[in-house]
């Protein structure tokens, strides 16, 4: 197999706070191949956004990428690259699309100015050349009358238009990889579909790889060939998209899939995963999901599970891989039982 475009190995990003060390990302390994779209899913607090920011080394004090982490991009380890080298990669070889299209744009500059800035940074392009290129990019992202819109300020555009502007900024330098952090979360459903369609379209045209970070499994199903599920700062499951949806292995993934409301399904209570993601300063012993898990047993409370291979390209961080019969004995998760005891 050819070498992956991006290979993250044992990434650990810790925040050294007064309340202790928050292990937000704790030993994550993942690969993205050229031209591929990979989904990264998880609840808030699972560490997916910190993983994304770490890849571009955008973590600020008191956060730190710990020794031994490797982020190999096109053969170069970004974890140890100089700030100068990182600046040449950011926005140029790896670009990022942010969640909130309103706040990710500076309100005091026109959108054309902000798109053009990317070329000014990386190509030392003249003001005029950068502007021309910006208008071209805005046109590519399907913004009508791009010349006029380029002279608008962010507040004059709708959310969907602003997200197109952010995509134009990300694609300006034709990067190898785009990290899209919840690119559609802040948008209306109809606009969401348009934006995903646009991303797919541009990806095919430019052969860009996309790491799609989201908590929306619908977005994953729509766009990704492979999915990585994060929980508690770790990768808990990794599989081709169709496999993950058809036969999830990890109980957490199972729970996520069951929590999707379905149109037309018989009306019943929507399934939820009881409890919340524990604070990253105090991950539970053993499996980090054990107290929310309907299958947990003694072993899961003490022994931290490795990433088991459970199928072709399918990995799961769950002891059920070794004791599959336990899946037939679901019970009330520990958190829910504790709540009943307390009441």
């Amino acid at each position: 197999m050819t070498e992956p475009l991006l290979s993250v190995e044992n990434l650990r990003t810790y925040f050294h706070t007064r309340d202790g060390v928050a292990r937000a990302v704790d030993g994550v390994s993942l690969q993205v191949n050229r031209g591929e779209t990979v989904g990264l899913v998880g609840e808030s607090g699972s560490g997916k956004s910190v993983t994304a920011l770490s890849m571009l080394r955008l973590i600020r004090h008191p956060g730190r990428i710990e020794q031994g982490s490797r982020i190999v991009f096109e053969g170069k380890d970004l974890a140890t690259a100089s700030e100068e080298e990182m600046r040449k990669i950011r926005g140029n070889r790896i670009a990022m699309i942010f969640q909130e299209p309103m706040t990710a744009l500076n309100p005091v500059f026109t959108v054309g100015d902000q798109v053009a800035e990317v070329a000014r940074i990386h190509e030392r392009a003249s003001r005029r050349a950068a502007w021309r290129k910006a208008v071209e990019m805005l046109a590519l992202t399907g913004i009508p009358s791009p010349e006029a819109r380029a002279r608008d300020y962010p507040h004059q555009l709708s959310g969907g238009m602003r997200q197109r502007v952010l995509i134009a900024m990300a694609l300006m330098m034709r990067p190898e990889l785009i990290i899209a952090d919840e690119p559609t979360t802040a948008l209306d459903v109809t606009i969401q579909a348009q934006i995903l369609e646009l991303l797919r379209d541009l990806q095919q045209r430019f052969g860009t790889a996309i790491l799609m970070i989201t908590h929306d499994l619908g977005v994953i199903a729509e766009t990704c060939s492979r999915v990585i599920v994060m929980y508690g700062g770790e990768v808990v499951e990794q599989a081709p998209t169709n496999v993950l949806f058809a036969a999830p292995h990890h109980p957490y993934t199972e729970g996520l899939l069951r929590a999707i409301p379905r149109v037309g399904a018989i009306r019943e209570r929507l399934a939820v995963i009881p409890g919340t993601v524990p604070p990253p300063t105090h991950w539970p012993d053993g499996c980090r999901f054990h107290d929310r898990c309907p299958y947990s047993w003694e072993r899961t409370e003490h022994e931290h599970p490795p990433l088991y291979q459970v199928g072709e390209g399918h990995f799961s961080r769950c002891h059920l891989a070794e004791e599959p019969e336990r899946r037939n004995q679901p019970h009330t998760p520990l958190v829910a039982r504790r709540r009943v005891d307390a009441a």
Partner: protein
Amino acid sequence: MRIVPRITAPANAGVVVALGFLSLLLLAAVAAPWLAPHDPLAQPDIVGARLAPPGAAHPFGTDAFSRDVLSRVLYGARISLAVGVLATALSVTLGTAYGLVAGYAGGMLDTVLMRILDGFLAIPRVLLVLVLVSASGSLPLPALILVLGLTGWFHVARLVRAEALVARKLDYVTAARALGASGWRIVSRHILPNVLTPAAVAAVLGFANTIVLEAGLSYLGVGVQPPAPSWGNIMLEGTEQLRTAWWVALFPGIVLFATVVSVNTLAERIRSGPTGAILLR
């Protein structure tokens, strides 16, 4: 600069009066050589015309050396305003730069810079300036401006740093970093506009503070040296005859008072305006 939201708060009468007064004062200071009825240093008749009360020949009266007080107040405005403007420009520039560096860098550097600043802030400015000024005997005007400027930036730095700390967490600042913008570009393009309003308020208040401080120093005899007129040293000379010739100290006092009140009114207006409104002009 660029288009920013229009000022929406209604212009109130106080602001109009303050702006009017300051404009007139500035004009008068610039045009002093043509406006002043007499030479501010001339002592035409030290026996016959000394301490003449306000009248047609001398609208503000004359002082103990028979000099025309109106002319001295007009020329004094030039010196007092120049000292205020230049010293404030220096201190706001220094304070903004220091605050931006500390606020954007964050972490250890911020901590160290802020502790140093705390040290500076612990020294009362008036005492610091008095020591500096009196240690050197009498200071030439540029040195006085320098001393006032170098001691006036601490609170500006503190304000700007607080604002920069907030601004650097904005999404578009992270986005700019993710696009590969250099620290300098981020600070000048994305952080600076966010600190302009507090910096402008600090500048305007600092200006009022500085002219009062200069007047105080001159009043104590360590600021602007006679015979050059400044509002402070005119008042100093007037205090000696306050019972017999009230006009010598009163007129510069009124002008100084009106200036400071006007400036503070303006500062309040800028503070309550929308963020970025000061970019307009």
